């Protein structure tokens, strides 16, 4: 296996392709967290009184909470007072009217990422609400969306223009004191996206936000709220890359989805934040709370995620299946290489009658990485006829990595049908030999096998994301043969 190991070394040594820093002077708050900082953020964003009160309540609750330690990840203690809680690109004050007015350096950043904003938006028919650091700088396709009655804007705009909607739904899925990081986010969140799909509307295009962390030492605290009113449908795409930094950056986002009667939300993520270098130095800490609430009957929420980045991932996109006949889905590919640690999974809470959930989780570990699936399926006593199928498979590449499975099943109704399956395996010498014998290079063979392993999840991704995800996976893992 000597050629293989050379191959591995060569590929493991590959540098992070998206590592660069755009040199834009940032205007931000000094590091530290106290009530004044919370007030300052709220004032900078010109928020109404109710938002400030909401933030302060969250902050006071956060002070009483302790950081969770149960996840299968290890990292040095975070000093929350050494983080700056707000930064914005300098050109904030006179906001650009169109893309042409956008700071060319910003556009350059997007170019480097391989997603020229306007082109991509126009060609793919995708409206992009680009979040660069903490302030939205460009929003496209507003017109087409507004014709359909769809509200798609940055969170701060929503607070100003649609306070009644924000007030009605904010914090109803992820309450302020839900967990340590959600409380922190509720207190200091900077910006994010807001989507409202009115009754009976099928959103005319796929909505996409390109998140990006830029300024050093800036925690990014995104807040996303998607409300699908009765009978509506929306597909939302989220993708991210981050520049190379040696200091760990904290990211604690909160995503709330609300699906009313007969509504459907499809939320897809490709996450490729900086995972740290090959020695585990640097990288993003990604502590995210994502939760969807199937509030009405026959509603559906589907999470699809491809997680290849971040030094530490702590993320459990969940569904509360409250409405009768509601459906929750979770499709995930989590790749951890080098010294990455991922503790990810989902929660499916069955409350309504005849609720169904499907969980398909594929974990791939390579190098020294640790990858854990942690999931909960809870069937409440009133959830007559609940159905769950869970499948979590792990693929190990190399001798130093780990794959772990912690599924919880709490079943309080006898009519529930719950199935859970898990397997762990490696790419076998037989499989490789078979491919090599047919003239397929080792690298291609590994790609093929890994892609086959993940196919079930990729099939759930929107077309353009699926292509990106596949390429991402190949870059992340090529040649790492065990």
């Amino acid at each position: 296996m000597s050629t293989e190991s050379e191959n591995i070394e060569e590929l493991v040594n590959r540098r992070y392709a998206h590592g660069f820093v755009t040199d834009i002077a940032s205007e931000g708050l000094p590091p530290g967290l106290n009530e004044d900082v919370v007030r300052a953020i709220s004032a900078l964003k010109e928020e109404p009184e109710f938002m400030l009160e909401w933030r302060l309540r969250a902050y006071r609750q956060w002070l009483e909470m302790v950081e969770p330690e149960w996840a299968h990840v290890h990292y040095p203690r975070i000093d929350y007072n050494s983080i700056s809680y707000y930064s914005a690109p300098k050109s904030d004050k006179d906001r650009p009217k169109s893309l042409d007015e956008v700071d060319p350096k910003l556009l350059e950043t997007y170019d480097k990422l391989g997603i020229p904003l306007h082109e991509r938006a126009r060609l793919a028919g995708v409206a992009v609400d680009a979040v660069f650091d903490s302030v939205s700088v460009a929003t496209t396709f507003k017109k087409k969306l507004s014709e359909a009655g769809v509200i798609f804007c940055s969170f701060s705009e929503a607070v100003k223009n649609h306070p009644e909607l924000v007030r009605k739904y904010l914090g109803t899925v992820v309450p302020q004191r839900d967990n340590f990081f959600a409380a922190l986010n509720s207190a200091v969140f900077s910006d994010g996206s807001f989507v409202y799909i009115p009754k009976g509307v099928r959103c005319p295009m796929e909505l996409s936000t390109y998140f990006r962390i830029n300024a050093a030492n800036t925690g990014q605290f995104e807040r996303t709220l998607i409300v699908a009113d009765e009978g509506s449908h929306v597909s939302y795409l989220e993708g991210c890359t981050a520049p190379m930094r040696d200091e760990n950056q904290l990211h604690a986002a909160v995503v709330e989805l609300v699906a009313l009667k007969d509504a459907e939300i499809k939320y897809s993520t490709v996450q490729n934040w900086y995972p740290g270098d090959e020695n585990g130095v640097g990288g993003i800490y990604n502590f995210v709370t994502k939760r969807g609430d199937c509030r009405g009957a026959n509603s559906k929420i589907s999470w699809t995620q491809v997680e290849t980045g971040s030094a530490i991932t702590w993320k459990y996109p969940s569904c509360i299946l409250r409405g009768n006949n509601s459906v929750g889905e979770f499709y995930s590919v989590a790749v951890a290489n080098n010294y990455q640690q991922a503790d990810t999974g989902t929660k499916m809470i069955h409350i309504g009658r005849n609720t169904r959930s499907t969980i398909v989780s594929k974990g791939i570990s390579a190098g020294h990485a640790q990858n854990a699936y942690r999931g909960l399926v809870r069937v409440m006593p009133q959830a007559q006829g609940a159905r769950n199928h869970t499948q979590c498979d792990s693929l190990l590449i190399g001798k130093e990595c780990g794959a772990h499975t912690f599924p919880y099943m709490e079943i309080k109704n006898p009519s529930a049908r719950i199935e859970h399956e898990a397997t762990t395996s490696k790419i076998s010498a037989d499989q490789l030999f078979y491919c090599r014998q047919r003239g397929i290079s080792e690298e291609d063979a590994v790609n093929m096998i890994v892609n086959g392993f993940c196919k079930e999840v990729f099939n759930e991704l929107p077309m353009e994301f699926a292509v990106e995800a596949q390429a991402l996976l190949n870059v992340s893992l090529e040649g790492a043969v065990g």
Partner: protein
Amino acid sequence: MSEPAFNHEALLQAVRDLPVDSLTASRRDAANLFVARGFPTVRDEDWKYTDLSNVIEISQQSLQVASAPAAIDEDLLRQTQANLDAHWIVIANGKVLEQHSPGTNIPGVQSGSLQKTDLAIDEPLADLNLALLRDGLKLDICAEFAPDKPLGLLFIDTVENAVASTHARVNISLERNANARIVEAHVSSGPAQHYSNCVLHLDLAEGAVCEYLRLQDRATNHSQTARLNVSLKRDSSLHHGSFDLGGRLTRNDLNVAIQGRNATARFNGLYIVADGQHVDNHTKVDHLVGPAISQQEYRGVLSGHCRAVWNGKAIVHKGADGTDATQANHNLLLSDAAEIDAKPELEIDADDVKCAHGTTVGQLDERALFYLRARGISKPDAKRILTRAFAATIVNTSPISEAHEFLGGQVEERLRTIDDGRQS
């Protein structure tokens, strides 16, 4: 949730009051360790679904009531011994009953007292067990051991009107290439509440083979926590079967450490949980070296207002290549108020492994019921047939084949009670 207060001073006093012997120092150390940590609570991950409040209350009260242990329920003793044929060693209310324990004197078995070195188990309930241990037993089984029937360990507890708790501990070692079949039975009777805390250690040396059957059939007002720690050396093999049919609250911890190559651990279990009962099975297999095999299958039938917990953990440590670990857990929920909490865990730090687990929770298969009904079988009968078949998988593959008939009968009896409850 607030736990009942436990008076640690009373515990330390009770430990001081025990007669002085070779274990005295170890008891006091263990008592101090226990006081430092206290009882596990539902905030501890391993005890998330099992609330020990009742056990704490019983422990507390039994420390205060310094009454002499009740006389042994001879009928129950004879009955149990008649049901399962074995060379019995009887541990009654925490003390070895010499006159009923021919098993200590058969060729190939050396019995003795526990030494300080046999005692280290880092777990609060094991500390409590040691602190209040009156009589520990150590059994060494030699390669010459070849009896006609299994060796039996019978834990029998009898209480009268006073609440009581007992603490028992047995260490069993199988010498190199020894071959032993062991039956462990837990029974109890009496009107008052009772808590039994058993800690067992089973050590299999190179090439040793052990069939081990554990049957817990306590009175339904009696609770039990039981721990069995197993270490397996090279080429050794353990086949363990576990049956939980009685008890109010039962918690079993089965920890297997695979320390030698080519060791095999196979363990199956059946729990039949009825109204008012709580059965918690925690299993953990540490694959420290490979290749080695571990296989486990637990099945549960739940009825009435009850709760069952199953937590299976397979840990494949770095370097344990060639590990083959499988876990399966299947549950049949027969009533609205039954709850199952299942958690099959895998922690894998080696890549050349084959690991899988599967868990199901459900009712009887409607299609299978229809199949039987279409052939003229009444609905209750059809249900009975399918429930029996579900449980029979474990009974028929359990160790100690001569016990199958008795076990089958016991299981049948429990299921009949469920049927009766279902019809009324």
